[in-house]
């Protein structure tokens, strides 16, 4: 022991009754294999492990049954051999009291080991190998928080100068580290050596409170036995809660403070729990994964308080039974210490890797909390706060949900040690208030992030819409100006040329209307024909109905013809106007097409910008916008093509005369079509009535059909020529 070690003190702290003697009189004994083992998949801080087994599988002791998912996660091994009997949600040891997925093993009581791989000489291994061994063994912090240990030992050795082993065990009742050291100090020291080999620290300090003199002596003795290994200093520190808090222990041993929101490694310090060092010894030297731990069973309801070596997953009920605990007398079942532990409301809850203590307390021992009185601002909480906060100010802010001020008063630095609640004369559950405020702050920050993102999105969209609107307005204004100019020009032209003013215009709409009418009548005709055909084909044709339908058909046909005629006329008229005044009504005029092209181009640009914005924002609309851009591109190309064609056509129209009157040809075709129709109709009728005229009509129809084909061919050639 180094007596000249310079100790530092931390501010505040309390001296609760330590209640440790009860459980240190009996040596550690093995708790035995319970009838069921329940292994939660989340026993550590980080991602849940992934089960590798399914119900019905048989497993061996030490077999990997769930693997770590990602770096901050931990492996899980079968604590004994047996059968997987279930993988389902069970109540677990957690503050929330919620259930979580657990693997249940029914032991076969043979306790058959899986093949173990041990590292014979760790000194010949490099750090990576050892870290991998620690990671494979599923070791997590044994002090209570359960942070995966391989993450902590993966610190860069160049930056680490001090390795601190936390054996303070400052919480009342807990004696698991004390007894572990007393009985297995050599193994603990061996584990520390492995850790030291990985981290290569200049100093190795074991911090232990002065209420464990036997353990401290055992450590010193064990260190002295091992002469050739790095120097380990056992530092005996004054008993004061919470000296075992990582931050407080670092302050006591080094005088340095871990920066707010930072890690000890920033100070060149790595801090491990003593139990973790023991687990590292088991993993590396013995090749045994973390499948058991030392747990204290104590409390006044417990007849034989002592420490047990417990398989991970052992239900608390089993421990209560073997320690002769009177569950009827137990009013509060605490996992962990009385200061920071949490209550269990179900005795089936399993022991996990971080469970260092079970307190079965009677009502006299841990009485129900007294009624909360008014805060008299006595400031006793301020005196004991090891984080040097103002607990009563935080209380007021938490109580009134004044989260902003609570944050400004560093509520985030609260380690929830409970010293403030312990001394509060008004029985205010202060830590509970802080937990509430911390939760609220977390939620608010998440919400704020979300709403900030939404705000940026909204503002960007608004800006884009405004810009687009402005562009549109500008274009509209330009168009209006152009139109006004044209109007003026036309007026001038009209004044110069009065005949031009009486030009008859056929609006495109009319033509379209006619087309629609024609289509409708055509459809009606087709329908009537179908109906007649159907009726005639049936077994008992209703002649009256057929007659009626025929009448209707005739009428429809007349209508169709009228429509066709009207349409032809309209088209003719339109053509006349369009040739006279190409840019007026023709939708294919170069001017229009040009506008179309411009429009399409501008749309393409907008779509492109939108796509870029979306890409920048990483929005999920990217895919949709990409399609839109592709579509717009296609449209621009189409428009370009159409424009080119149109320009060519116009040029041709301007240079060559129209050789054939296509309109007249079209009319001819229509007339021919009508005749063919009529002929075929008559033929059909004749056929139906089995008249002798069928043959003659057949010939007539063929003739008419030939004529129609001829007319069509002429028309087609004419149109073709026209197009050139």
């Amino acid at each position, binding site marked *: 022991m180094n007596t000249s070690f310079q100790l530092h003190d931390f501010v505040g702290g309390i001296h*609760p009754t330590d209640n440790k003697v009860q459980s240190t009189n009996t040596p550690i004994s093995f708790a035995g294999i319970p009838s069921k083992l329940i292994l939660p998949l989340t026993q550590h801080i980080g991602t849940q492990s992934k089960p590798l087994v399914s119900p019905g599988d048989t497993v061996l002791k030490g077999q990997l049954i769930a693997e770590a998912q990602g770096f901050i996660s931990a492996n899980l091994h079968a604590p004994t051999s047996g059968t997987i009997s279930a993988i389902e949600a069970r109540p677990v040891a957690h503050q929330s009291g919620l259930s979580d997925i657990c693997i249940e093993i029914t032991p076969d009581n043979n306790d058959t080991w899986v093949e173990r791989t041990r590292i014979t000489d760790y000194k010949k291994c490099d750090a990576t190998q050892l870290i991998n061994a620690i990671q494979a063994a599923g070791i997590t912090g044994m002090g209570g928080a359960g942070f995966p240990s391989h993450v902590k030992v993966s610190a860069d050795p160049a930056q680490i100068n001090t390795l601190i082993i936390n054996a303070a065990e400052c919480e009342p009742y807990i004696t698991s580290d004390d007894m572990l050291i007393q009985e297995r100090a050599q193994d603990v020291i061996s584990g520390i050596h492995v850790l030291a080999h990985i981290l290569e620290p200049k100093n190795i300090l074991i911090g232990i409170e002065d209420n464990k003199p036997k353990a401290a002596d055992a450590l010193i003795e064990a260190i002295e036995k091992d002469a050739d290994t790095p120097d380990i200093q056992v530092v005996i520190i004054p008993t004061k809660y919470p000296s075992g808090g990582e931050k407080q222990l670092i302050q006591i041993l080094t005088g340095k403070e871990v920066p707010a929101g930072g890690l000890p490694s920033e100070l060149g310090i790595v801090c491990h729990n003593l139990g973790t060092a023991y687990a590292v010894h088991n993993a590396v030297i013995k090749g045994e994964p973390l499948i058991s731990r030392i747990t204290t069973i104590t409390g006044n309801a417990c007849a034989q308080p002592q420490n047990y070596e417990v398989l991970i997953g052992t239900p608390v009920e089993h421990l209560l039974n073997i320690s002769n605990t009177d569950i009827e007398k137990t009013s*509060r079942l605490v996992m962990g210490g*009385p200061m920071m532990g949490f209550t269990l409301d179900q005795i089936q809850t399993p022991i996990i890797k971080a469970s260092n203590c079970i307190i079965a307390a009677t009502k006299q021992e841990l009485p129900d909390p007294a009624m909360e009185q008014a805060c*008299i601002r*006595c*400031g006793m909480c*301020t005196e004991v706060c090891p984080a040097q906060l103002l607990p009563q100010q935080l209380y007021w802010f938490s109580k009134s949900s004044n989260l902003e001020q609570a944050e400004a008063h560093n509520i985030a630095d609260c380690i929830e040690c409970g010293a403030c609640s312990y001394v509060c*004369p*008004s029985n205010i559950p202060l830590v509970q208030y802080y937990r509430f405020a911390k939760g609220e702050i977390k939620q608010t920050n998440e919400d704020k992030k979300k709403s900030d993102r939404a705000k940026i999105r909204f503002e960007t969209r608004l800006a884009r819409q405004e810009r687009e609107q402005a562009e549109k307005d500008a274009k509209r204004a330009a168009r209006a100006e152009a139109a006004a100019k044209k109007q003026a020009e036309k007026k001038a032209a009209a004044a110069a040329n009065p005949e031009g003013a009486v030009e008859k215009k056929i609006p495109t709409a009319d033509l379209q209307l006619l087309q629609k009418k024609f289509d409708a009548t055509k459809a009606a005709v087709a329908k009537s024909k179908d109906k007649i055909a159907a009726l005639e084909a049936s077994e008992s044709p209703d002649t009256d109905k057929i007659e009626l339908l025929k009448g209707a058909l005739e009428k429809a046909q007349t209508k169709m013809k009228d429509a066709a005629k009207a349409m032809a006329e309209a088209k003719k008229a339109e053509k006349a106007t369009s040739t006279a005044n190409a840019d007026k009504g023709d939708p294919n005029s170069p001017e229009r097409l040009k506008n179309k092209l411009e429009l399409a181009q501008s749309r393409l640009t907008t779509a492109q910008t939108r796509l870029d914005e979306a890409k920048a924002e990483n929005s999920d609309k990217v895919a949709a916008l990409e399609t839109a851009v592709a579509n717009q591109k296609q449209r621009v190309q189409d428009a370009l093509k159409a424009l080119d064609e149109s320009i060519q056509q116009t040029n041709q129209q301007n240079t060559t005369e129209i050789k054939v009157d296509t309109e007249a040809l079209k009319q001819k075709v229509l007339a021919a079509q009508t005749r063919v129709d009529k002929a075929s109709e008559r033929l059909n009728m004749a056929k139906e009535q089995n008249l002798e005229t069928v043959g003659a009509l057949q010939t007539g129809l063929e003739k008419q059909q030939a004529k129609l084909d001829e007319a069509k061919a002429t028309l087609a050639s004419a149109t073709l020529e026209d197009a050139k």
Partner: protein
Amino acid sequence: MKLLNISSPHTTRALSTSNVMLNVLLALIPGIIALTYFFGPGHIIQIVIASSVAIACEALVMKARKRPILFYLKDYSALLTAVLLALSLPPYAPYWVTIVATGFAIIVGKHLYGGLGQNPFNPAMVGFALVLVSFPVPMTTSWSAPSELLATGISFSDALGFIFSSREGLDAITSATPLDAYKHQVALSTAQEIYQNPLFKGADQSSIVLAWQWVSAGFLLGGAYLLWKRIFTWHIPLSLLATLVLCSLIFGWDADSYVPTSLHLLAGATILGAFFIATDPVSASTTPLGKLIYGAGIGIFIYIIRTWGSYPDAVAFAVLLMNFAAPFIDQYTQPRTYGHAKPKRGLAAKD
């Protein structure tokens, strides 16, 4: 048995708010004994009056606020307010002064602000200040001379008579307080001449202001007990006394023109104020540095008001003035939190 499922910590220290209040009451006993020994049973009667009124008012307000009456009476905070107030008042002040002061202290000074823990001002001092400014005559002429200077002691029936009915014969036993007397005489006389006044001498000529010294010693003993019990910290009493001494040394070094330091410390309500009134946690500053500033502020105000003010004593006003400042002081004296480079100052900036 149903297992209790609650948040940590699971163990607490057996020191309740009522325990705190009882300890303070206990610590007042030596002072009360000294007061009664030297000034007759006046203070005892005042304590009884004030306590009854305070408990009645507290119960009344709790009933009006629909709170469990007994639960709140059992925190003894009203009782403590009453006792402190009774000890501040002149021992032979008429009963109605005490009733008005106590009623005002409990109803207005404490409960109109929200009750225990919410009152920004020390309720006892609120009540005291009210009667001091409202009824100056009974408040300045009801102080008795120490019993050594009286031909016959004050009997209990006399005391009852003075307080409840006839004020006749009161003149025979009253005198100015030493602080007041010195302040008024120092304008005309030297320190040596003032000390000739029997008020400043014990009957046996052994020491100055003997009676008041003993009273102060009694309260000092109680204060030391509370410090030992860690009911409050040393910050406020020490900085108050140190500042007062410093002020009187700097400004009042000349005993021929100013009240000397010894009188400041021992002849008035300084010790009672420093250990029992300024340390009222509810209305005081709560941060370690804040407590030092708060105590120093009271010390300075006591000196200023005693020296240049027209009141017989200054503790009440000094405490009330610093009560105003306590929340502000707290905001600017936050301790440096673990892991932070420097302490925060003030409330969070509103954006």
